[in-house]
Every structure is written in C-alpha cells, then in structure tokens.
C-alpha cells in the first residue's frame, strides 16, 4: 500500500504543486520516487514528530496540502496534542499518513503496533479517517483527500497489495462500499482498513457464507449520526477491524445508535489486548483478531 500511496501522491503533485510531503526521517525505499521527482516539495523534519506536525500546520495555513508520512504510532500518539490543537482545531489541510496499521509491523513489537489509533483520531471533530481496505480503496481515498484537503488521517497496511474491488470505488466519508451483496442482505460483515482479505479468507468461507460484505474506508465524528440509516437495514452486523475494540470502529458505530431504537445486533471482531507484548508475523498476530 505504501508504494501505491506514493504513486498516487506523485500523480496528485503533478497537478498541484502545493502538495508537500513531510517525513520524520522514515520511508526508506518508499518515498524515493517522490523525492526525486519533486525535490522542492519534500522535507525531512528529522526525528521530531511533535515539531513536524507544527511545521505541517504552518505550511498548511497558506494553502499547502501537507502529507505527513510516518509509521505506526509516531505520527499519531507521539504528537497527539499537536494534531488536536494545531491541525484539527484550525481545520488545516494536513493528511497524517501512518504505515503499519494493526499488527503490520509484527515482529518489531508493541511500540510499532497500531492498535489504538482510531480511538485517538476519531475524537478530533474536524478530522476524517481514511482506512482503505485494498489498493483500489486507497486510490479512491486519495482521490477524495486530494480533491477535499482537510484534517485527515490515512491509515495504511504495511505491505498489503491485494486488490478486492475490480475498479476504484467512489468513496466519501461515512459511505458503505459494497464488496459482496447477498440476496436477502440482512446479515453483513462490515470492515474498515485492510482486513477485507482476512474476512474473505478466514470468515466468509466458513460459517458465514450467507453474509454480505461491506467496507467503510472513510469515516469520522462528522459522519457518525448518519450511520443509523445504514445499520437499521440489517438484522446482524459483524464488525471486523485490526484494532482494539475499545474506542475503535465498532464503538463508533455503537455510538451512532445512541438514543435510537435499533434492533440490529452488532458484534465485534477486533484484536484482543492479549496481543500486547506478543511477537510474530502479521499473519500470526492476526490470530488475536477474534
């Protein structure tokens, strides 16, 4: 996904010279293409994530669309207050990109596991989360973000290259994107992020063959209330995410039902906190998604 992201960013920068790529000394072998093509649009802030977000805010204040690229928790938790005060509060066009969602950096350990980032980023009122499920959703998210610069968080799987959608879906915040639509369509899986492949391989083919499958690649605080209209169509929704249940996507959906009379049963399949401190490949650690 990282390479597709850089390809899409290059395409966008061809058309818009106000796009800036800012990194915290990360992106070895990934960002080179952009740096060579647009040396004047690329800056390395050094290993200083909090200041980096401040620089991004200053750049964005005069019309730059800044993509801050980093991995794991470095561009979220490390600089949470800067995102809150400098970017979100001022409603500035900065897209924070984090590579290595969930347990993508498997054997690098807990410091590199992105398990709580939704919980943080979804509490910022102006920020939209873009968590694409495959490379086509990533392209769709990039199209949306480039055309609608705003505080945003782009969450990328480290090395997933799978393609689920045949063509680039039309994506906007809060919209459910169809992947599989069963005939009576009363039960569905609902995903955000790069877990679609996981659902298809491990769940759909086994006990849930009568389930539809939808993805929500973009969402945030502003789109929560309209989720009721989607949810109420179903009797049962199994929400799958490579994140802790606490503060995650499923929690967000549940909050959307607050004060609503809704019969839909929403079940969470998320990563157990027993994964903390465990080491292994991404596939191995995804066994903690239950």
């Amino acid at each position: 996904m990282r390479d597709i992201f850089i390809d899409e960013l290059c395409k966008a920068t061809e058309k818009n010279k106000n796009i800036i790529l800012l990194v915290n000394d990360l992106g070895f072998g990934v960002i080179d293409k952009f740096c060579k093509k647009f040396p004047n649009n690329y800056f390395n802030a050094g290993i200083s994530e909090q200041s980096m977000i401040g620089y991004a805010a200053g750049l964005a204040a005069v019309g730059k669309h800044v993509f801050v690229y980093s991995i794991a928790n470095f561009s979220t938790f490390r600089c949470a207050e800067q995102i809150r005060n400098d970017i979100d509060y001022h409603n500035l066009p900065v897209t924070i990109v984090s590579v290595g969602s969930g347990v993508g950096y498997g054997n690098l350990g807990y410091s590199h596991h992105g398990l709580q980032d939704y919980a943080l980023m979804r509490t910022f009122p102006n920020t939209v989360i873009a968590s694409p499920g495959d490379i086509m959703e990533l392209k769709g998210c990039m199209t949306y973000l480039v055309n609608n610069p705003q505080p945003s968080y782009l969450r990328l799987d480290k090395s997933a290259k799978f393609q689920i959608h045949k063509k680039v879906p039309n994506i906007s915040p809060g919209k459910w994107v169809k992947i599989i639509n069963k005939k009576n369509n009363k039960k569905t899986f609902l995903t955000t992020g790069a877990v679609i492949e996981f659902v298809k391989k491990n769940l759909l083919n086994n006990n849930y063959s009568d389930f539809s499958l939808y993805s929500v690649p973009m969402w945030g605080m502003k789109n929560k209330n309209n989720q009721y209209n989607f949810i109420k169509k179903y009797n049962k929704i199994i929400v799958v995410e490579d994140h802790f249940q606490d503060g995650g996507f499923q929690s967000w959906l549940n909050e959307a039902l607050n004060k609503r009379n809704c019969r839909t049963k929403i079940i969470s399949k998320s990563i157990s906190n027993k994964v903390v401190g465990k080491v292994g490949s991404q596939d191995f650690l995804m066994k903690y998604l239950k």
Partner: protein
Amino acid sequence: MIVQKNFLLKISKKIRIKILEISNLAKSSHIGSSLSIVEILLVLYKFFLKKKNVFILSKGHACLAYYCILNKFGYVSSKQLNSYGKNNSILMAHVSHKVPGIEFSTGSLGHGLPYAVGRALAEKIDNTNNKIYVMISDGELNEGTTWESLLFASFHKLDNLFIIIDYNKIQSLNFTKDILKIEPLKKKLDSFGCSVKNIDGHNFNQIYISLLKRKKNKPTVLIANTIKGKGVKYMENKILWHYKFPDEKQLQKAIKELK
C-alpha cells in the same frame, strides 16, 4: 533614534492600565506575563506587522496584552475587549484564532514556534518577502519542540523568521534558573546556528533596531530581557503575579503608579 519614544511610552502606559482593568474585571490570571511584553508587541504592531507579515504569540497565557494591543490597532472592539473571559466571549484567556487579527491559537506551550517555522518555510517556498515574528516565553525553553524547531529553522536558513524570547526569568512555579538551567542562553542559541541578540525588552529603540536587521540565511533570535509584572512595582519580579489578579484596591494603586 526613531521611534517616537514619548508617544509609545504614553500608549504603553495606557495598555498596561487596560490590562490591569480587564484582569480585575475578569478575575483573570497571568498578569505578570502580559505586563512583560507590552513594549515588544507595541513596536511589532506599530512598525513591523504591515502587509503580509505575521505574528504568533506562543506564550498564549499572555493573551490579555495581545488583545489590548489588537484593540489599540483596531482589530478588536472595546466592547469585545470588555467581554474578556466572560460567557460566550470570543476572547478566551489563551490566544485564540477566533479573535480578529489572530492567525494561530496557543495555550499549550511549545506549539507556536514549530507553527511559525512551518509558516516561514511556506513563505520561502512561495518566494515572498513576508516575515514571521513569533514570541515565546523563557519557560518554553524547557520544551523539546523549541530546540527541534531551532535546528530545522537553522538548517533551512529561515532568515525570514524572528523569534523573540520574553526572558522575564520567571516561569510557573519558580525562577527559570531554579527549575532548569537555561544559561548560557546566548551561547546555546548561537551554537544552533541562529543570529542572536541580547536586548532590553522594554527599550523601544533597541527592540526596533534589532528587528530591522537580520543576518542572511539565519533565523534571528532576540533574547528580550524583560521584567515580569513590569510597570507595577509591587508586581515586578514576583512569582505570585503569574497567578493572581488585582483586587479593586490593588488596581487603583497600580493605576496611580502608572499614571
């Protein structure tokens, strides 16, 4: 010299009185921090913040001085100023971009300088002559982002960036020298590749001259030696007036002294 010293002195006294009056009215703290920066703000707004130059007040708790200056220069009405800190006012007790004339909100320390650095970088990218002025507190020299930003500003030769340190030597709980040792400050800043000047932060002429000149390819840092609570003897150099607001009796005493 320059700079209409008597005229500015007269205005600075009026602004100090305004700060005290509003602080009393709103029962609001951080008065010492506001009183230490009046001359610097006055010179900036009178002479430097024209065209598209930008000012960021990173020590957001000193916003009362800022709002009073914005009132003096026509950005904020007197009615708005008198609403400071009250229900539904746009004038919150830390710098807010909801206030006309203010670009960037602050309040948590260590945010203003990185923003100003990004802002200065943007002006360089766009090849403008616009200048970015940012005032930070001496307490903010404890923040890692301050030193990170200096590294970045220096590396990228941001000579359109003017950093003014309000060196009143008192921070929240104690004197700066008794919390973390920040001296030798000039030497530290020099070693970061900045063009550094020590000035009297209450001397109009020194402020003006030092903001006029800059070294090519280097960010300018002014260590503005100031007095916390400046202008009111019983407040000067007292940690207490970081937090306290003057009651009616204290207010009248201060106004009498300033007049």
